[in-house]
């Protein structure tokens, strides 16, 4: 399972980087999203994959189930997803605004202001 997820992480990362290198802002945003998903998978995999029971819920406590799994990686990922959600929303709004102002979504439009 780890191997599959490792490859999936790599694949998502590669796809994200590829999209970042394209010229369109929409693809840039999609690229950032893919990167963030790949990092989430990375945390999930690095946190350890093993079968176990959930922790802390009433039903589990009552049944006295042992062998709990580590809930922390999922909590981290959840936080990261929520943050990513906010940032994606912001980025989309930014892109929309940029499109309104410049009438294009070509990243070459950004060149100005860099060197001068």
């Amino acid at each position, binding site marked *: 399972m780890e191997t599959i997820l490792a490859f999936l992480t790599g694949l998502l990362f590669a796809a994200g980087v590829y999209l970042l290198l394209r010229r369109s802002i929409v693809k840039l945003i999609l690229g950032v999203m893919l990167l963030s998903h790949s990092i989430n998978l990375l945390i999930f995999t690095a946190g350890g994959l093993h079968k176990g029971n959930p922790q802390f*819920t*009433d039903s589990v406590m009552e049944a006295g189930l042992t062998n709990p799994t580590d809930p922390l990686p999922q909590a981290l990922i959840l936080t990261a997803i*929520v943050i990513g959600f906010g940032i994606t*929303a912001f980025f989309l*709004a930014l892109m*929309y605004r940029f499109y309104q102002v410049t009438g294009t979504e070509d990243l070459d439009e950004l060149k100005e202001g860099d060197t001068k």
Partner: protein
Amino acid sequence: MRSQLLQMAASRLLPVTMILSLLVFYRGHNDPGGGFIGGLMAAAGFVFYALAFDTREAEKKLRVSPLMLIASGLSIAFISTLPALFAGNPFFTGEWVSISLPFSAKLKPGTPMLFDFGVYLTVWGIMLTVIFNIMEE
């Protein structure tokens, strides 16, 4: 172009979504669910309403401005951290009181739930602010 059917459905669905969102929020205390998802669901109800009518109608239906939802959500979340200080525990400690109700039912409201309600309101308000603003463009 407003669809009658959609308007009908939206105005009937709004109370249902609200109740459902509160249920999800309440359930989140011990099971999957919680303030964040509840807030998103509440926002979804109003966004659907705004799609069917328009944002102004939805804001009228909401009665308070989404900004006030955010402000009150943040305040509630902040206030929920304070009881711990009076109980002499470190900041943010969860505190519970037990209230006995008739028919041997027990209610255990605590600060985590209050905090979660703050999250609920904040998420609801922020989602509405964002989406209404974009829809009005």
